């Protein structure tokens, strides 16, 4: 049975599983965190502790997509609005009751050595297993010289990390902001400052939308809004990219706790495949509650079984070598779309996507081979639609008429006239059709032998003074 325990992350943090709650409303207090541990979470990063703040109402807004709630989530909430004493006394209680779970203190104080030394000592005295330095909060706190105001200046980040390391007895994790041109610049600074680990990404500066009745952006605080921090499923691709950037850079790479739109075991597995040792979730928990961790743990376990991985380290980082710079990609790799006529439901979204958004090589006619010379000529989508609109259709009112329609279906589940056809000579293998197709495995991208050995852009342009070879034209 696979073992998903985390042992000695960032030089000493262990937890029953890699699923941690990110520093956020789900980790606001000890009572919540204990319920989360009961539900199955392996660790929790406490809602950032510092000088208590006053929050506004409202605080959150979201981006919905096609009827689905919270594709992306935005907040303008600040750090904990509870006193350091209360937070730390609850932390001590949690650690007493859950000695084997990871409790990380997220910290943000004024930029003085004394302030940081004091909060580090007090947190560790309360029993924190590690410290996460919040250099990422993009709203509110940054206006006061904290949060991303630190995280966007490598020198500050390095300085504060070093101050913390002067005192800390537990692992120090620096949380990175994505609101910066190159996330590696701060990762390197944290590493130089002596950080034991990193967490990424914090939220992304955002305005989620504008109420078209009131013309006020959301969240609306008495008629005004302010940019917030964006997170949730929408940011996962951005987070994965930044995780990869950090983990592929020797002067940045440290044990990394992945954050950004993680809602299920698949997301978690992907972050771990790019090198993360633990993952942190927030938005999904705010949407559905702590219970989502059950499927995260079971799903990861089942996937690891099916792949033969015995523990997290078995697959951590396995996908990192699969990411490279564009110039190292094989220009002679060729794939073309293939449509499974048995699976096609006849929505013809691939056809219109290819015509309007790609390379005009998926057709609704069944013509094969070149017509009218080298290039196949086909009616454009508008002509196709016009023909349908001009056709005469009757309601099949008699049993006989209905039977006749059923009998005219042809050999596939979908009438042949609605099953598109790929012109493989023109297909550039862009994937678009397979992405818009609603049916799993209906459109597959099939490798074809290009007849030429692999060659990258770098190889092709090496010694660019030479004349191009014929097969490179």
């Amino acid at each position, binding site marked *: 049975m696979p073992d998903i325990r985390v042992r000695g992350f960032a030089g000493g943090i262990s937890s029953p599983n890699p699923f941690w709650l990110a520093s956020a409303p789900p980790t606001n207090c000890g009572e919540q965190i204990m319920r989360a541990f009961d539900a199955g979470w392996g660790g929790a990063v406490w809602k950032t502790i510092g000088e208590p703040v006053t929050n506004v109402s409202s605080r959150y807004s979201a981006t919905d997509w*096609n*009827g*689905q709630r919270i594709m992306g989530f935005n907040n303008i909430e600040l750090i904990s609005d509870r006193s350091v004493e209360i937070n730390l006394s609850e932390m001590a209680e949690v650690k007493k009751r859950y000695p084997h779970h990871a409790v990380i203190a997220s910290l943000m104080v004024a930029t003085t050595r004394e302030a940081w030394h004091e909060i580090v000592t007090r947190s560790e005295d309360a029993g924190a297993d590690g410290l996460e330095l919040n250099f990422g909060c993009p709203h509110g706190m940054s206006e006061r010289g904290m949060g991303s105001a630190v995280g966007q200046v490598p020198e500050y980040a390095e300085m504060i990390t070093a101050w913390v390391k002067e005192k800390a007895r537990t692992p120090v994790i620096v949380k990175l902001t994505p609101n910066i041109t190159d996330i590696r610049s701060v990762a390197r600074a944290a590493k130089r400052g002596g950080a034991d680990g990193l967490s990424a990404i914090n939220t992304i500066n955002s305005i989620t939308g504008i109420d078209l009745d009131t013309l006020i952006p959301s969240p609306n605080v008495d008629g005004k809004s302010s940019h917030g921090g964006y997170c949730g499923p929408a940011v996962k691709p951005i987070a994965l990219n930044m995780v990869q950037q950090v983990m592929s850079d020797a002067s940045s790479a440290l044990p990394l706790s992945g954050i950004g739109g993680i809602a299920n075991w698949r997301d978690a597995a992907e972050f771990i495949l790019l090198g993360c040792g633990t993952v942190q979730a927030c938005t999904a928990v705010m949407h559905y509650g702590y219970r989502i961790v059950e499927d995260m743990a079971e799903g990861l376990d089942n996937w690891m079984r099916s792949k033969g991985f015995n523990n997290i380290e078995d697959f951590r980082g396995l996908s990192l070598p699969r990411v490279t710079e564009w110039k190292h990609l094989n220009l002679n790799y060729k794939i073309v779309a293939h449509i499974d006529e048995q699976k096609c*439901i*006849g*929505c*013809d*979204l691939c*056809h*219109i996507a290819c015509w309007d958004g790609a390379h005009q090589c998926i057709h*609704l006619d069944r013509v094969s081979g070149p017509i009218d010379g080298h290039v196949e000529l086909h009616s454009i*989508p508008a002509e*196709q*639609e016009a023909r*349908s*609109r001009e*056709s*005469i*259709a*009757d*309601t*099949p*009112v*008699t*049993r006989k008429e*209905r039977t006749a329609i059923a009998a005219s279906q042809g050999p596939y*589940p*979908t009438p042949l006239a*609605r099953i598109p056809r790929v012109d493989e000579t023109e297909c550039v293998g862009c994937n678009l059709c397979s992405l818009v197709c*609603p*049916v799993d495995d209906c459109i597959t991208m099939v490798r074809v032998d290009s007849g030429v050995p692999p060659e990258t852009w770098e190889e092709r342009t090496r010694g660019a003074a030479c004349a191009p070879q014929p097969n490179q034209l």
Partner: protein
Amino acid sequence: MSTATLPDDPQLRERFNELKPPLSPQAAVVESNRCLNCFDAPCTAACPTHIDVPGFIKRIASGNLRGSALRILEANILGGSCSRVCPVEVLCEGACVMHRYNREPIHIALLQRHAIDDFHASGEDMLPVPPAPLNLRVACIGGGPASLACAAELRRHGASVTIMERRALPGGLNTFGVAEYKLRAADSLREVELIRRMGVEFRFGAAIDSAADLEAIDAEFDMVFLGVGLGAMQRLGVPGDDQEGVLNALELIAAYKTGHIREISGTVVVVGAGNTAIDAANAARRLGAEDVFMLYRRGENDISAFDFEYEHARQEGVQFLWWRQPTAIQKGESGRLVLNTVQTQQVGETLVPIPDTEFIIDCDLVVPAIGQSPLTQLVQQMQNVAVRDGRIVVDRATGQTGNPRYYAGGDCVNGGREVVDAVADGKRAAIAMLKSAEAIHA
């Protein structure tokens, strides 16, 4: 003047409460988001009026409800009644690709109704700005769906149109012949009112019966659209088929929809097994009849009613007598009727009665529902308008008859199909008339 309407009858509303209640605004958005937005969608192709189904559905999803309704009404001015009466199982929803995906087709009819109801509730007009007048005067004979669709399409392009309706109220079978739990007469009239506000003129009580009437029309109008529908329902053709207590299905439906029949008790026998027969049988049940039988001379697998209609009738408690036909209707005791029947069997191509299988049904009402007779008397007086098998012969794409000034569509051409077929006919004829007028004036 607005179109006359019918008094509201709470008892009727309660007994014929809607079969499919409308979607809430939120449910409509959820359902509209489920639509895949197919290219050149099969639902659109399957609809005789080719409503841009994904187009109107995605407008609901985006919150552009007015745009959604207009998208529907541009293709089908009776989109509201079609959303209630269309047999969508064999049309748009039957063609939905979802049948091959996660099985449940998009609820197109309910979404269409949602958009149109919202438009009607807004009180908006189809033509806020009247089009530039066109030098074309058209008479539409008959005030049913085919004529209404033809008139609206013509009016949209600036022609002046007059609808000649025999009855005091417009809408034809949409107002008088559809089961009230599908389409309320009031909703049909509301739809006609929208067309009237487009500037279509209505003449009620305008029966066109004689050569003189036709001459007058020819003198007043440039072109004529025949949307006259079919004739009266056929009689059973057995002794006693015209006595009191025999009321054909369309008469029964019109009578209860207009408040002339509010209650039925006892036993009712409906003869026939088409969709109208089922509407009548269900109506009899809902009006209070204890036992309602449908008598059909063939078997269960031969009925022309849609499967979902048959299923519905069974749920309403209608009982079926297969392979049996009436032989006579007699006066029974205390004013009741005695229906003599005999079992039938198929011998080759014909049905023959089986001897010694007679039995009688004591009943209170016999409802023939064996189809409408063709309406050809008037048509035969029109020059060059041909009739074959009781149907007016037209060019399929234009609805033009042998007489270039006369067009026709709907039941009088197709022998009796759905509202949506009539609308498609009327629209095609209008477009052809406009083209023809353009050619003349060019």
